[in-house]
């Protein structure tokens, strides 16, 4: 039985009690006593590197770093006598003099913890000369820049990359005065195993590691004038809590919310942290109509609405409602999806309604036919508890980088094994086994694995099996699977994107070989193609049958969330329509099939409800920005293109 032992000691003459194991710093903070820190971060393990938190213990000759010194019964701690203050001032001056800490040309000025300490200590000059060493600036990475001259060697980036991101790309290299933060084994960041999660940027107290995008940004102004919005990122269905900083309707930066008790530990991925800052794609700001020469002509909003209504009405009149179609991206919010369905079904009585990722829905439904509505996916946290993670037909590094982070954490902390089956080994060196297999051959591999792994009888595998699959990697995979007690199977687009559900079914059977998680939850994570796929499918927007099975469609409305990819087959089908109007945020000439293009806001300008992809609920994503001038809200657009009868 654990007993909570309480330690009592004196701090600045005050008698206090704290639980055993607490550090002096924790005790001080619990009792409102301020001790300055720099390398310390509440969400990372303590390091004791900067020594700014030094305190005097029992009047001893050496000052102790309070962030790493545990409390002891009867100890007497002083936190701010003259000796301590002098030591801290000297340490701070040395930090400034050691490298290049010139605030006047640093973009971090105003948002820098080193600078704040100088202000707190009222350090208005240096009494030691600046050392003048030059360190490199690493600009090799697409999103993250490291200026080693501004580094204070606090090690927060090292700890964050290992403890929160589970990637361990950064660590100290060299010694003494030449110590610096190294990347992998002395690589440049751009050539390293960095996955661009950006946690290092978020935890770096100075301007040493900074965001390549929008750090040197004219509209930034002072940090105190930024607006801070707490919301969620709707890019992939994990809905990671995020903080958006906005100034004058410009997005300045995006942080993850620390501390966090979510399995991702508060990190973001490059889709959530960097992509929204990188958009310089031209937005569609005026409605357009395709003119006879294959170009586009601008329309007023009222003209555009009128022509959409006429186009849809003409098709309905000629062929009936059966010939009308509504297609919408599952990247849209649930509110948009609902309004769209109302417009097309109740309004236009369209015969066909589907999402762009409807194919994945249909395959999933077919595969879970036997299971029915009791199919419950594993929550993502289960990945970090697994002892074996199978990544099948998925590219987590591209589509769901946080899942990739959870897999790496499982390996680092749980000693989990991993195996990747697919066209590319996207887990890289983290994968225990990798079986390269095309999308077409994947079901066959799964079949072989099922037979081998589930084999109870002593029967021998067929000759065909030996010819196709016998290899060291396969045997390794079978062994891994057999030895695992707590595996999690992650399936992706290579399986859900096939119209034939048998491949997906095999993955389900494989997952079930080891039984279920508590509550009948399957050992399965099914990656969804879009940010609100679960929401769209739950709202019934995905059709039970593909568009090719619904021949009579002659015209309709397509609603995009961003630059959604349209499959070539779909594009062709759309080209054959008599009338197509597209609601889209971006102009792309690819939309040649359309007669009318209507601009619409992106998710940053709309917000809305998005469903968690594992079926565990939903989150409300806030509206962060105003749309560019002239672009009307989605509800207004949809309300304006209903039938006029």
């Amino acid at each position, binding site marked *: 039985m654990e007993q909570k032992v309480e330690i009592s000691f004196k701090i600045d003459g005050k008698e206090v009690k704290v639980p055993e194991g607490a550090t002096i710093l924790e005790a001080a903070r619990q009792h409102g006593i301020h001790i300055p820190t720099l390398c310390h971060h509440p969400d990372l393990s303590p390091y004791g590197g900067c020594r700014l938190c030094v305190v005097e213990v029992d009047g001893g000759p050496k000052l102790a770093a309070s962030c790493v010194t545990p409390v002891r019964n009867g100890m007497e701690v002083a936190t701010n006598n003259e000796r301590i203050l002098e030591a801290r001032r000297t340490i701070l001056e040395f930090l400034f003099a050691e490298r*290049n800490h*010139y*605030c*006047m*040309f*640093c973009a971090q*000025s*105003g948002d820098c913890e080193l*600078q704040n300490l*100088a*202000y707190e200590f*009222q350090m*208005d*000059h*240096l009494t030691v*000369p*600046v050392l*003048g060493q*030059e360190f490199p600036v690493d600009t090799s990475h697409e999103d993250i820049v490291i200026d080693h001259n501004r580094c204070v060697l606090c090690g927060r980036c090292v700890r964050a990359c290992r403890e929160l991101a589970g990637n361990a790309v950064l660590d100290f290299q060299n010694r003494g005065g030449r110590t610096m933060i190294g990347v992998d084994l002395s690589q440049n960041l751009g050539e390293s195993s960095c996955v661009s999660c950006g946690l290092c940027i978020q935890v770096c107290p100075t301007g040493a590691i900074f965001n390549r995008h929008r750090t040197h940004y004219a509209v930034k102004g002072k940090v105190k004038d930024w607006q801070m919005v707490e919301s969620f990122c709707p890019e992939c269905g994990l809905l990671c809590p995020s903080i958006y900083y906005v100034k004058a309707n410009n997005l300045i930066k995006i942080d993850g919310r620390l501390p966090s008790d979510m399995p991702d530990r508060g990190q973001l991925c490059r889709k959530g942290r960097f992509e929204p800052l990188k958009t310089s794609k031209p937005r569609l700001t005026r409605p357009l109509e395709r003119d006879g020469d294959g170009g586009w002509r601008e329309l007023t909003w009222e003209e555009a609405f009128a022509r959409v209504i006429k186009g849809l009405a003409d098709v309905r009149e000629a062929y009936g409602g059966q010939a009308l179609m509504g297609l919408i991206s599952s990247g849209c919010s649930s509110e948009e999806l609902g309004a769209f369905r109302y417009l097309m079904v109740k309004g236009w009585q369209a015969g066909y309604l589907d999402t762009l990722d409807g194919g994945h829905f249909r395959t999933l439904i077919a595969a879970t036919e036997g299971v029915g509505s009791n199919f419950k996916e594993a929550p993502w946290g289960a990945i970090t508890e697994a002892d074996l993670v199978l990544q099948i037909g998925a590219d987590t590094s591209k589509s769901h980088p946080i899942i990739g982070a959870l897999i790496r954490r499982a390996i680092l902390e749980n000693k989990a094994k991993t195996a990747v089956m697919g066209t590319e080994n996207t887990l890289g060196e983290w994968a225990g086994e990798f079986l390269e297999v095309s999308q077409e051959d994947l079901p066959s591999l799964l079949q072989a694995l099922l037979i081998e792994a589930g084999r109870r009888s002593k029967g021998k595998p067929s000759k065909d099996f030996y010819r196709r699959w016998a290899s060291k990697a396969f045997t390794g995979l079978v062994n891994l699977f057999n030895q695992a007690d707590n595996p999690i199977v992650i399936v992706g687009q290579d399986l859900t994107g096939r119209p034939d559900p048998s491949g997906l079914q095999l993955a389900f059977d494989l997952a079930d070989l080891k039984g279920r998680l508590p509550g009948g939850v399957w050992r399965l994570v099914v990656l969804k193609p879009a940010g609100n796929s679960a929401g769209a499918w739950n709202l019934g927007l995905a059709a039970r049958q593909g568009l090719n099975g619904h021949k009579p469609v002659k015209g309709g409305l397509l609603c995009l969330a961003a630059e959604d990819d349209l499959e070539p087959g779909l594009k062709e089908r759309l080209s054959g329509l008599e009338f197509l109007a597209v609601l889209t945020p971006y102009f792309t000439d690819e939309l040649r099939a359309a007669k009318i293009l209507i601009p619409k806001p992106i998710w940053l300008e709309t917000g809305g409800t998005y469903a968690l992809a594992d079926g565990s609920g939903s989150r409300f994503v806030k509206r962060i920005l105003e749309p560019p001038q002239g672009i009307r809200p989605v509800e207004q657009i949809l309300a304006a293109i209903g039938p006029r009868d």
Partner: protein
Amino acid sequence: MGKPKVATVWLEGCSGCHMSFLDLDENLLGILEAVDLTFTPITDFKDYEFPELDLGIVEGAVANEEQVEIIHKLREKCKFLMAWGDCAVFGGINMLRNPFQVEELLRRGYVETESVVGGVLPAHEDLPALLPKVLAVNEVVTVDIYVPGCPPSPDSIAYALKEVVAGRTPQLPAGMLHFD
């Protein structure tokens, strides 16, 4: 004492600190009544032969040999020396040139520039030589009062001056101390 005698100089600076001083606008009148402002680069003076001063003020870092001379001349003549701005206090933006050799810099600036043909390195006995490294003022002479900023706000300059006139060593309050 009677009205304290004050002089200012600028060395390797952009004059922004003096502009900030001028940004005191009508409050300048009060200051000019409280001190006897002798030489400043804003008014027209022809040499650096200062009288005995109570307060010397310097903006800008020490980057060439002439500036070494000037700052020594000022330091000799003033009871207290005040440094305005990050250049005088820390070396400032000028420190960007410290990783490079002087010859490299001059070559890049006069010979290898994109728009120059047949450039030559400037060399004349009247041109002051660049020091190998830009120095903060307190690396050359003793400085008594520091007012960092880039530029320091007019309020912080006014505060520092008022404290000195009142006979106290200024300690910039929170909010007035900034390095940008």
